[in-house]
């Protein structure tokens, strides 16, 4: 125990590490905020950058960027309706209307506060229960991942407040588009028509930037002359009472986030979506109806995707299995610095675990400070007349898109998606579901097929698996419940109508 405390204190005793963490968080916020730049990209750049550094310093920087980056994506979602990362889509749905009402300051303030809280929840769970959770998460079979993806898809009908059927249509289009490219399992080319660029598939980030960013810009131009909303910036930091009011929701959602982050391969984005859905179903009297700026709709996804940060480290540190894309890159960094990520990591280099825990904690504190300090400048951004800011945003999106793969074709895609998104929105087809479909499509397809392969392509054993395996059974029942709770039968029974 004493040993662990010593390890925990390592960053506190090193000037360099402290500075790097703060720098990292700051840089991460900006990277996350810029549409197209993802934390994953920044992390992989940093690996090469910090090759010759001392491992501790490198890790401090990367942890900082990770924490800051996840947060940054929500800022542009709230301010400009351009999520910096898929995890921020749900935040944007509620945050953007708030910003339009002039309450961007409050929205960001709330977002920051609960984010920090959730980040700590994730860290605590990581410190206390990592091995247990890691071993449990291994038990998730492809079938269970499929069920999780289905849960995510069920959200599609209700996101954005539009006609649910149109939402489903948009989602299905997204799923269809996600199939373009090389099938990861068999290598078969689907919907590529011999074009080599299509072979690489359609990156959902490109689509997201186009569908949200560019189409938002175009939609804005229909309201030419409308003034940008003036921001009320008096009370940014939520009062203690407010914080307590949302506490149960925060705890629920962040725990959900930690757990989903701990599942290998799924991270903050899925966590945020599921948490948002969970909030919609369980909160009886939202501060505002969902879709128009409900504060609960910010609290839930934000806490989930921050909890997922800590969660992602759980399998990574205990088993050497990445919990999400960023931790996969961190594993690479560990190799390069001569360490052996894997089950032996905690045994051979015990200081690493606690050091990372404390780096993340410091980063969370830094987030609190830097986040709140930047609220005013960020909120002021909306006040810039849109005639000026929109062209800049478009160019920013262009760079961000290009930076993903250094491919000019991506820029064309993005603009194409923007135009498509614009037309879609005119007819009530929300763009959120389409991006969701793009993200969840591969998860659905691949895991469904793996589960099928596990059952040797026989329908009966495949279906059996849903009820015989305890985890699958639980998830299946959860989905059934989700579906049933939408019907009027259930609502009458519960006295909701």
């Amino acid at each position, binding site marked *: 125990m004493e040993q662990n405390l010593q390890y925990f204190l390592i960053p506190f005793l090193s000037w360099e590490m402290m500075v790097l963490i703060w720098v990292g968080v700051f840089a991460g916020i900006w990277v996350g905020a810029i549409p197209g730049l993802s934390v994953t990209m920044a992390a992989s750049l940093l690996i090469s950058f910090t090759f010759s550094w001392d491992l501790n310093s490198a890790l401090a920087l990367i942890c900082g960027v990770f924490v800051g980056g996840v947060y940054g994506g929500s800022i542009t979602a709230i301010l400009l309706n351009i999520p910096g990362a898929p995890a921020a889509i749900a935040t944007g749905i509620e945050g953007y209307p708030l910003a339009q009402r002039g309450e961007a300051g409050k929205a960001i303030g709330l977002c920051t506060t609960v984010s920090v809280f959730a980040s700590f929840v994730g860290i605590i769970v990581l410190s206390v229960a990592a091995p247990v959770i890691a071993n449990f998460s291994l038990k998730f079979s492809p079938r269970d991942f499929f069920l999780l993806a289905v849960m995510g898809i069920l959200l599609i009908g209700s996101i954005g407040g539009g006609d649910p059927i149109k939402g489903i249509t948009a989602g299905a289009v997204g799923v269809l588009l996600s199939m373009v490219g090389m099938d990861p399992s068999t290598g078969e080319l689907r*919907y590529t028509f011999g074009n080599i660029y299509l072979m690489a598939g359609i990156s959902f980030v490109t689509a997201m930037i186009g569908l949200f960013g560019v189409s938002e810009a175009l939609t804005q*131009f229909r309201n030419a002359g409308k003034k940008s909303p003036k921001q009320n910036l008096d009370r940014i930091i939520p009062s203690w009472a407010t914080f307590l009011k949302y506490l149960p929701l925060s705890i629920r959602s962040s725990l959900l986030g930690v757990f989903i982050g701990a599942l290998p391969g799924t991270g903050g984005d899925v966590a945020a979506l599921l948490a948002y859905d969970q909030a919609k179903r369980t909160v009886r009297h939202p*501060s505002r109806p*969902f879709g128009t*700026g409900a504060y609960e709709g910010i609290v839930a996804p934000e806490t989930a995707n921050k909890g997922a940060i800590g969660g992602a480290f759980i399998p990574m540190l205990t088993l050497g299995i990445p919990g999400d894309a960023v931790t996969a890159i961190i594993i690479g960094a560990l190799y390069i610095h001569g360490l052996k990520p894997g089950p032996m990591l905690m045994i051979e280099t015990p200081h690493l675990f606690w050091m990372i825990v404390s780096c993340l904690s410091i980063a969370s504190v830094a987030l609190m400070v830097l986040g709140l300090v930047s609220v005013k400048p960020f909120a002021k951004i909306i006040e810039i007349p849109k005639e000026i800011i929109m062209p800049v945003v478009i160019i920013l999106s262009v760079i961000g898109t290009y930076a993903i793969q250094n491919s000019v074709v991506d820029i064309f895609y993005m603009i194409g998606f923007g*135009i498509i998104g614009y*037309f879609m929105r005119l007819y009530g087809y929300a763009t959120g579901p389409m991006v969701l479909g793009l993200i969840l499509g591969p998860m659905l397809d691949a895991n469904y097929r793996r589960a099928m392969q596990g059952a040797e392509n026989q329908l009966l054993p495949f279906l059996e698996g849903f009820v015989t395996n305890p985890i699958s059974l639980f998830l299946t029942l959860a989905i059934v419940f989700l579906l049933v709770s939408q019907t009027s039968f259930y609502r009458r029974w519960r006295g909701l109508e």
Partner: protein
Amino acid sequence: MEESREFLAEGAAGTVKDLSKYVPEARRKPGELGMAVLMFLLGALGYYFALDMTSGEYSSPSVFPKLASTVIMACSAVNFFKAVRREKPEAAATLKGYLLPMDVVVVVVLLVAYCVALPRLHFVASSYAFMVIGMVYLQRGKNIVRALLISAVSLAVLVAVFRYLFLVILP
């Protein structure tokens, strides 16, 4: 609990539109039927091309594409029928006017021009032109100098950050 009220909601004039329940509008938008048909065709095409893919087992690559296409077709059909039952759009709203107000047309044309110019003129020139023209047009010819300045500064910052910090070679 006075303070918590600051975070409570109030819509314009006290009415709060409940967006969690969808309330369909009475009239169609111009071109809505066409949109539904378009979507249906998309689904049909998706299904058609999926037929080329390997199939046979439950776990074939063609399963999900076919599934997604079918969902699109089904939903589009539903959308179509729902739209048909609604009233025709107002006489004043024309298709072109609804879809393409002048500003949008100009920006789209600019975007397309940008796509064409990019490989030839490269990033800095194309982006600068785009931003300046965009800003000037949107502000209806006012504040030209300000537009030139802001575009230059933001472009400089962006290029500096991306080129030197992130080591991205811009096109």
